[in-house]
């Protein structure tokens, strides 16, 4: 499931709801992304996330489909916020549920890595020196390339 929203979310409540009633789930892996209060050059006192309505949902759905193709998942959840966010605020939640932990861990890692290089969001940081668009990091591209090879989805553990 994909949700793109301005409002905050409660990670505990989301996880409780996520697999409620599905007793095939043996494990859930969750990544929770927060707003950091430091940048390369200046103190960040907040940021605003812009996105491309329509394409954001389309790309996130495609990323979820790819995760489900690669790993035996019972469910997957991506929540991404947009708008003005203060340091410490929750930005993104990715959760995956599977019978076994390896698929849950790997697919969660995959989803956040691909999301960071494909979902059309842009951060502008509000700093003491003014507003600055955040530049994309080569390290994010490198992180995403680790998933270029399709792993064996049957690893049972």
């Amino acid at each position, binding site marked *: 499931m994909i949700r793109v929203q301005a409002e905050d979310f409660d990670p505990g409540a989301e996880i409780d709801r996520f697999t409620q009633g599905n007793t095939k789930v043996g494990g859930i892996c969750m990544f929770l*992304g927060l707003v950091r209060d430091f940048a390369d050059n200046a103190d960040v006192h907040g940021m605003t*996330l*812009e*996105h*491309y309505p*329509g*394409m954001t949902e*389309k*790309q996130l759905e495609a990323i979820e489909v790819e995760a489900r193709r690669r790993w035996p998942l019972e469910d997957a959840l991506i929540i*991404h916020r947009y708008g003005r966010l203060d340091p410490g605020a929750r*930005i*993104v939640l990715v959760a995956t549920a599977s019978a076994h932990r390896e698929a849950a861990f790997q697919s969660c890692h995959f989803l*956040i890595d691909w*999301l*960071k*290089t*494909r*979902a*059309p*969001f*842009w*951060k*502008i940081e509000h700093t003491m020196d003014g507003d600055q*668009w*955040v*530049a*994309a*990091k080569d390290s*994010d591209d490198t992180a995403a390339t680790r998933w270029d090879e399709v792993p064996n989805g049957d690893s049972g553990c």
Partner: protein
Amino acid sequence: MKVLYFAWLRTKAGTGEEDLAPPAEVNTVAALVGWLKGRSAGLADAFADMALIRVAVNQDYVGLDHPVKTGDEVAFFPPVTGG
């Protein structure tokens, strides 16, 4: 054709969205970029370095040689920084 700009491209373009009717020979993304650059100094500046720009046609990522036609939604934006 709907043309969208995001992040610093929107700032440089001076708008986030335009409804445009480029001439018939503008039938690829590259040709559209060339045509847009002639429309204003801001757009010429925005498109000065295409290595910094990603393109989507109808909400899918495409390359500069991808065709464009009447009715398409074409979006230009910098590399993404979500998550």
